[in-house]
């Protein structure tokens, strides 16, 4: 064997040993009960209180929430989500009922638990959980929301960071050699992020979730931008077969 072939073979062996066993590229997550037909897709859905915070970021990186912007962004997100639910076959939005203080406390703690679950899933490093995705938050929400007739809730949260004009200028100048010695290096511009997740009320199982992250020009005060973000998330709904193919689910 020539030296060249030997090196090529060694490289192939090395690549084979170090390549991850699976490289999935679907951004969404599907509960195994949906994959194996033990659960049905959500039909009557309560949209949980939408939480979107919008911040202004200065040239020096100081972040300040702008309450009017957050209110506008939340309204846009809720509107876009409601529109998409209305368009999705077999799905219907159900209004959130009036809650007592104790019911509100139950809702709040479940939303806090959901946030922890949603943040843990993508960072756990447990590849076998991709094949059998079985996360949830327990059936506690059902005690409060069963009276609505809903079978699922939709968790919605996000944030948006908008750069000031000074920051944008700094970003541009930061890319110019020599100039950027005086103005400072590149700075990160704003980004938008929205997360959606369906919870089955009876079991508390996290049936489906997805997020969209966009850097740069997206502004959640603009309905069109939000509509686009939500559409990008829902593009993967429900994506059961796509998920099954990707992760070779077997029961």
């Amino acid at each position, binding site marked *: 064997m020539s030296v060249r072939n*030997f090196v090529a073979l060694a490289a192939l062996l090395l690549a084979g040993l170090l390549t991850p066993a699976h490289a999935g590229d679907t951004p969404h997550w599907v509960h195994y009960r949906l994959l194996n037909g033990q659960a049905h897709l959500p039909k009557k859905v309560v949209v949980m209180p939408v939480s979107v915070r919008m911040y202004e970021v200065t040239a020096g990186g100081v972040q300040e929430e702008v309450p009017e912007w957050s209110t506008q962004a939340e309204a846009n997100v809720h509107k876009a989500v409601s529109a998409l639910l209305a368009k999705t076959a077999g799905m219907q939005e159900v209004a959130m009922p009036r809650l007592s203080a104790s019911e509100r406390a139950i809702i709040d703690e479940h*939303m806090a*638990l959901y946030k922890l679950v949603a943040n*843990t899933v993508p960072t756990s490093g*447990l590849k076998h*959980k991709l094949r059998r995705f079985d996360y*949830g938050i*327990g059936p*506690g929400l059902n005690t409060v929301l069963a009276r609505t007739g809903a079978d699922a809730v939709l968790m919605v949260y996000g944030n948006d960071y908008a750069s000031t004009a000074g920051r944008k200028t700094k970003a541009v100048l930061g890319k110019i050699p020599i100039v950027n010695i005086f103005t400072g290096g590149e700075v990160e511009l704003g980004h938008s992020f929205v997360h959606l997740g369906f919870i089955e009320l009876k079991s508390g199982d996290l049936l489906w979730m997805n997020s969209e992250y966009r850097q740069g020009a997206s502004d959640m005060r603009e309905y069109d931008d939000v509509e686009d973000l939500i559409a990008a998330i829902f593009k993967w709904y429900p994506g059961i077969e796509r998920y099954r193919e990707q992760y070779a689910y077997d029961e």
Partner: protein
Amino acid sequence: MKRIFALMVVALLLAGCAPKPYWTLTDQKNHTVTSTSFEFGVSDGWVRTTEPRTWERLEIDGAQRTILLESMTVTRDGTGLQAMTITRRYPDTAFPTIKKKSVPTQLAPEVADLYVAELRKRTGLERLAVLSNKPAKIDGKPGFQLVMQYKNEDGLRIQIVSYGFADKTGFYTLTYRAPYLYYYERDLKVFNDLVGSFHQLKGAFDPPPEIPGWAKIFT
């Protein structure tokens, strides 16, 4: 022939270079986890760290220090959600941030008090509340069972149950942390089974290891 043999040797060497996975999934063939000082059982479908952690970096009095320990972690859904940790600390560095040692003659409630003070100081969680502190037996040794709770920034109650004991080889804890809502009760039996299966090994009585050479630079 010689060349094929040489290629096989290279392939084997390369295979040895591949890093071990951080987590090992438990199935019917590998329920028992064995470390140097202890072993314990893990339920099907849970993962555990493949190898024990043998040191940690802590800030003590404003300076970074390397502290030796032996620790393994078990989880089902990710340590962000729930974690069961089995740790042995050596006597001289049993409670490093409050600078106290463990001594075999200490009574269980005294050891428990030091442990809680250490946790509070180390994590900065002044408001970590002790819900109960009872005597317990771990591997036949007299110890404590502590149940503690705090709320995170979002108001989610996080519950912690710790079993612990001190002997001449050091201070041992078996701790389970999870959100009180749904997760804690759901997986408590798995933790109780783990505690019931915990067993100290002869390796606990060997001299403690040295701090790794490279870590001494930072000690």
